């Protein structure tokens, strides 16, 4: 039975349709596997009962011919996505017992498509981190090497898909939180264009950068789930009123003649030589598939990280002001007055990295510093975006580069050096600042057997090209078929 957990989404769909197995059976198989690999710490809460009930319902729908693309397919959600009557804590002590009174838009869409939500995955607290070590529920282990991190902040989702604990999982990507863990965990991760997927019901970290996306074991799987969760939402004023293309139906279209931009600023010092070699091999592969490689320049890349670490904390300090102990979540018990209530609740409730970013954000928005930091960062952000605009206008149809400068590092290795940790997102952050779609696909393993990811960056709302190129790359390579050394 265990091999049914190694199927692609379309294989699951066929299996369900042909009655090879039922949704209840496959859901049970995945729940068993989650239990078997509990030590990965990928999940923070399971909704087995609801999942099995949903699976049963899905089986009835399949039998009566009312199935949609994800009917009966198990999926996991990052713990910051709200699902009615379920816990959602963003892996923070401050709302560790929060039960959502409403469904996020992505959950509504998944339910409409018949997906079976099995539980919530571990993450860095409030999505702040690149290693999943900032979780109130402890670190997640990388299925490829349990001493290593899976990346972050969507580390639980990445590890769960990598270890085949679920075929699909959703994550969010504010500075690389889907692509970097996808790279470090050897799977595919898509962060769509800002505005493609509704943020309603997603616990906010940095509103102008946050975007929901998906993890899968193949480009096609990611394309299928993105089709389901995308689209304009009346409850999110920043979601775009655009038709959602059928990403999965144009995967095979030729990539002949597509111009792939290779930014020279992304092959800097500090990048792991093995990563560099793999990316170069991947680029050569793309060329052999008919794509044309073009050198491009994104001159403001070096300022992206600093810009991000002003804008994201600024928005975070504001978004996290609501966790005050008054209406829900944790409330300090011994406070004797209002100020103490706030200070104790927040001191006890938030972890160190969250506090660090709240303090940075509060500082950069303060009178006297606003112009020098926040306003300045906004200007630089526009320059970063303009770099991409110019490249796409004049030189290329998409961009290819490394997702992360290194492969997975050891748990504990960088926790005391936030700057080293922040450098992990150096190649992913510019995409968020520019609001672009980005995807990481497996493109190699290093000498230690740890995965390496190729990042593809697209024009706004042109996820289709990323999926197409990624799919062709996958067809020509075996990297995505490599499995982590798990039983």
């Amino acid at each position, binding site marked *: 039975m265990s091999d049914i957990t190694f199927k692609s989404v379309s294989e699951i769909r066929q299996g369900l349709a042909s009655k090879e197995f039922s949704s209840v059976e496959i859901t049970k198989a995945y729940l068993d596997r989650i239990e078997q690999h509990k030590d990965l710490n990928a999940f923070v809460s399971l909704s087995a009962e609801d999942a099995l009930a949903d699976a049963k319902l899905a089986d009835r729908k399949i039998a009566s011919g009312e199935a949609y693309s994800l009917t009966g397919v198990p999926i996991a959600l990052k713990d*910051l*996505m*709200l699902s009615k009557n379920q816990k*959602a804590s*963003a892996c923070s002590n401050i*709302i560790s017992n*929060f039960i*959502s*009174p*409403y469904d*996020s838009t992505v959950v509504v869409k998944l339910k409409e498509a018949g997906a079976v939500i099995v539980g919530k995955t571990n993450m860095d607290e409030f999505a702040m981190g690149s290693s999943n070590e900032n979780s109130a529920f402890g670190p997640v282990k990388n299925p490829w090497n349990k001493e290593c991190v899976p990346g972050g902040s969507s580390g639980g989702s990445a590890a769960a898909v990598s270890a085949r604990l679920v075929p699909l999982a959703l994550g969010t990507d504010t500075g690389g939180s889907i692509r970097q863990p996808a790279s470090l965990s050897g799977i595919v991760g898509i962060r769509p264009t800002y505005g493609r997927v509704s*943020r*309603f*019901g*997603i*616990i*906010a970290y*940095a*509103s*102008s950068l946050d975007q929901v996306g998906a993890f899968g074991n193949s480009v096609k799987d990611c394309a299928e789930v993105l089709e389901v969760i995308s689209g304009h939402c*009346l*409850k*999110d*004023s*920043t979601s775009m009123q655009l038709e959602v293309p059928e990403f999965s139906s144009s995967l095979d279209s030729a990539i002949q003649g597509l111009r792939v931009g290779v930014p020279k600023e992304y092959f800097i010092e500090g990048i792991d030589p093995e990563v560099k070699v793999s990316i170069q091999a991947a680029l050569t592969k793309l060329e052999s598939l008919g794509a044309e490689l073009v050198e491009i320049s994104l001159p403001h890349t070096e300022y992206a990280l600093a810009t991000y670490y002003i804008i994201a904390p*600024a*928005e975070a*300090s*504001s978004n*996290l*002001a*609501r966790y*005050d102990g*008054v*209406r*829900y979540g944790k409330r300090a018990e011994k406070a004797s007055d*209002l100020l103490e209530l*706030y200070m104790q609740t927040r001191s006890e409730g938030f972890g160190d990295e969250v506090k660090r970013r709240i303090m940075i954000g*509060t500082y950069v*928005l*303060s*009178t006297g510093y*606003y112009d020098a930091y*926040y306003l300045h960062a906004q200007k630089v952000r526009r320059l970063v975006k303009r770099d991409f605009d110019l490249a796409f206008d004049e030189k290329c149809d998409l961009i290819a580069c490394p997702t992360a400068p290194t492969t997975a590092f050891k748990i504990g290795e960088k926790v005391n050096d936030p700057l080293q940790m922040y450098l992990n997102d150096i190649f992913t952050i510019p995409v968020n600042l520019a609001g672009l779609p980005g995807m990481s696909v497996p493109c190699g393993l290093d000498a230690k057997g740890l995965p390496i990811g190729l990042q593809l960056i697209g024009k706004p709302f042109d996820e289709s090209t990323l999926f197409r190129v990624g799919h062709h790359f996958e067809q020509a390579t075996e990297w995505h078929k490599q499995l982590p050394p798990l039983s």
Partner: protein
Amino acid sequence: MDYEAVIGLEVHAQLTTCSKIFTPSSTEFGHGVNELTDPVTLGMPGCLPVLNKKVVEYAIMLGLATDCQIRKRNRFARKHYFYPDLPKGYQISQYEEPICEHGNIKVRFDDTVRSIGITRIHMEEDAGKNIHDPRSGTSLVDLNRAGVPLLEIVSEPDLRTPAEASAYLKTMRKILRFLEICDGNMEEGSMRCDANVSVRPVGETKFGTRTELKNINSFKFVEKALEYEIARQIAVIKAGDVVIQETRLFDSETGTTHAMRSKEESADYRYFPDPDLPELKIQKSLIEAVRDSMPVLPEEARTKLIEVYGLSEYDADVITAERLFVDYFEEAFQICSNAKATANWLTSELFGYLNKEAIRFEDCKVSARDLGTLIKLIETDVLSGKMAKVVFEEMFNTGKSPEQIVEEQGLKQITDPEEIRKTVTSVIDENPTQLEQYLGGNDKLFGFFVGQTMKKSGGSMNPKVVNEILKDELEKRKG
């Protein structure tokens, strides 16, 4: 040395939209504590604001009414502070880019008209309410009001006296009520006012150090609070001290103000553009559509009443106190075409009765149509003035139409000359003594015959016709 005050007012007007500014949650009055809340109002994790279009329209409407420029590109900003009645830890407001700027309104005060500048008008959300229980030492939070739309209207420091400030406030209230975008009830908090005030020697052009007065929650208190504060500041200066820039609370019990927080300790609100709300672009077409839907404004209505209808300034002022009065006047006038009579009946009879019976205008049983009809009945000699008052009382008490009352009570005025002549001749015949005296030259007795005729007819005869026929009959007797 003489001092003058410099005053600017910040008015918060709660808008009468059906739903809140950033969520469809209802704004209806009189619900149980925290009943008008939803995840967005409660600041639940993951919630996002979606702007209520009506709020934008109302803001544009007030902007046009106050001669403001409407900003084509708007942004909302977050204003941060921690307080239990503020669910998100920030208020969504407008900061650097308010929707309306650079306007002014005409304020009438003591027979003069002054133009008072409007610095800005911006949209924002209201906070909830904290309820403190001193006995148990606990505080409770009611978030029904959280997210209710507000317009903040900031005046230029153009006001010079407390009475002028009060006149400005009343004018602003009148505009808001004419537009029907705010009910302007200060006691209930649907209109709130903070005042910035400083003093300086007469003739000085620079401003003195100002204080901000809060908690002025009735029209009555605006003048009181300002008078106290101005006197206090002058006393401070005369004693050789300096006024400290600070926020002061008005205490209506004592009629005094006391310091709340000084500038140095003032909160840093850390404003920044709200990333959840994209830039709001206001199309010209929307501004024009709002302009087309604008009701008449108090000043326009006043001018029309004086210039078109020929009413006195006094009557025009009384009628333009409320848009309802103006609408009522116009509707009644449409029926009877006599502006002066309409104004008189409205302001003396109707208002008099309402006052006496302590009934609100909104609850008045006499429709404008019926009042117009009543006046028309007088105009067309169906009713005498005296009879009309009787009919009016019945209308006021029962809400019946004047036609119905006339019909039911047979109150029709008699204008038939033959019938009147009969009564007149019998009155003359019944009073030979008076007739003799009249014929002997006592002209004053003419009135006696009129009175007797009216009495005999129960006041139902048209006095004009009675006069004519009486004259005619008495002439005949002169032989």
